[in-house]
């Protein structure tokens, strides 16, 4: 019964929805627009910033995005000053989500060397458990079944290549 504890894990961050999240995201937008904007100047062209050249539209679009990112930040700030509620929902299972992203990345790397079926079955079990499943047997059975079904139908019937890996089928 101890394994049930993780499902009631306390919310990470503030469930009241402190504006940190939206501010960070807004700042991210501004930062990314800025970096990409600097990349626009790196585009090699003889046409300068002529509207017909490859730099013009990226310049316009990224400048606009930078401005809108700032407007978004200003909107958030105004909302905080007014004490109004913010649209962002609280982060509750952020750690689990981070683990899931980690599992996805590992999956991407082992897919080729290990092979589609074992990698997918393992991934399925790991992902399901991260998302709160507590039926190991069920997950293993479904994972292996799904992996085999996909592998056979895609390689045999549809002619899509999938890595065979360590267990030849």
């Amino acid at each position, binding site marked *: 019964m101890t394994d049930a504890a993780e499902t009631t894990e306390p919310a990470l961050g503030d469930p009241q929805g402190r504006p940190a999240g939206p501010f960070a995201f807004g700042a991210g937008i501004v930062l990314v627009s800025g970096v990409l904007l600097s990349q626009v100047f790196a585009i090699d062209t003889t046409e300068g910033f002529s509207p017909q050249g490859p730099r013009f539209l990226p310049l316009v679009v990224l400048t606009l995005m930078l401005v809108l990112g700032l407007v978004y930040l200003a909107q958030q700030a105004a909302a905080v000053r007014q004490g109004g509620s913010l649209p962002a929902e609280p982060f509750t299972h952020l750690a689990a989500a981070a683990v899931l992203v980690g599992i996805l990345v590992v999956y991407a790397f082992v897919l080729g060397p290990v092979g589609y079926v074992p990698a997918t079955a393992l991934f399925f079990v790991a992902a399901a458990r991260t998302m709160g499943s507590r039926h190991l047997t069920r997950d293993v059975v479904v994972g292996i079944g799904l992996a085999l079904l996909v592998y056979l139908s895609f390689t045999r*019937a*549809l*002619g*899509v*290549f999938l890595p065979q890996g360590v267990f030849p089928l």
Partner: protein
Amino acid sequence: MRAPRRSVVRRTVAVAAVLGTTLTLAACNQAAGGGAASSEEFPSKTVDIMVPAAAGGGWDSTARAMQKVIEDEDVVSEPVEVFNVEGGGGATGLSQLQKDEGDPHALMVTGLVMIGALEQASSPVSFEDTTPIATLTSEAEAFVVPSDSQYESIEDVVAAYEKDPASVTFGGGSAGGSDQLVVAELMKAAGADPSQMKYVGYSGGGEAIAGILSGDVAVGVSGVSEFESQIEAGDMRLLAISTAETQEVAGEEATTLQDAGYDIDFSNWRALVAAPGLSDDAKEQVTEVVDELHGTQGWKDALEANGWADFYKTGDEAQEYIDSEVDRVAALYEDLGL
């Protein structure tokens, strides 16, 4: 219009390309280690035809037509696989072909368009890094105008261009491709400056036709087959075709550029090349297979169905032709200022 419907065809996706080349690479190393590989019969395993572009284009249909005819008529005993390697106007595929050096089973479809693309991308690999096997097909370029155009002949177009180059907008396939090159060739032959040319590139035949009919483009240039149905329907007028030899377009004999007094023989050809470093013996054997393919009824039907002209040269003849085309394109690029 479309190819006969078959349900799901076993066809390898680009994914398979990676695997395919690693396998052939491994096999090739093995063969090289064996030493006496030259006496081996071709093909001794699956023949891979690479299409250095996305599925669906002209090179792709050429490769798939070859595959179909070879399999249908049992030209070789081993299976033939077609796979696509997209990118860089063919440069990506060409550099991948380098990995299979000396292996006669690694073939690639290519053509005139690739010369320009390599030129434009200042690619480190070139046509010299292949073993030309044969040229296969060619298509004449057509100069067309909307039916209500002021231009009645190709001479009118040249005259207008000579007066004011900016007054004539040309349009066709992507910039720097065969369609733009033939315009440059025409202006050069007429004694005008090709670098002043106003050219609008379109990504597909349909788009180009829309551009011509809507009036964005005054003179359309592309493969004859692209415009045939519009010419037939009376929406477009054919001014000239680019080959020295004339052909029937929409039921009428077309005027060639040479008829109009410009010394040009230009066609958009496609060819089959093998990986670089093939032994003469291996080259001979691959050529024999292509010879047999070329002789089949199936290939004649495929040419007919796709509207391709037979443009078959092998051996030194093919080599010389490709070399001269490479020089021609390089010169045209210079003139265009690209």
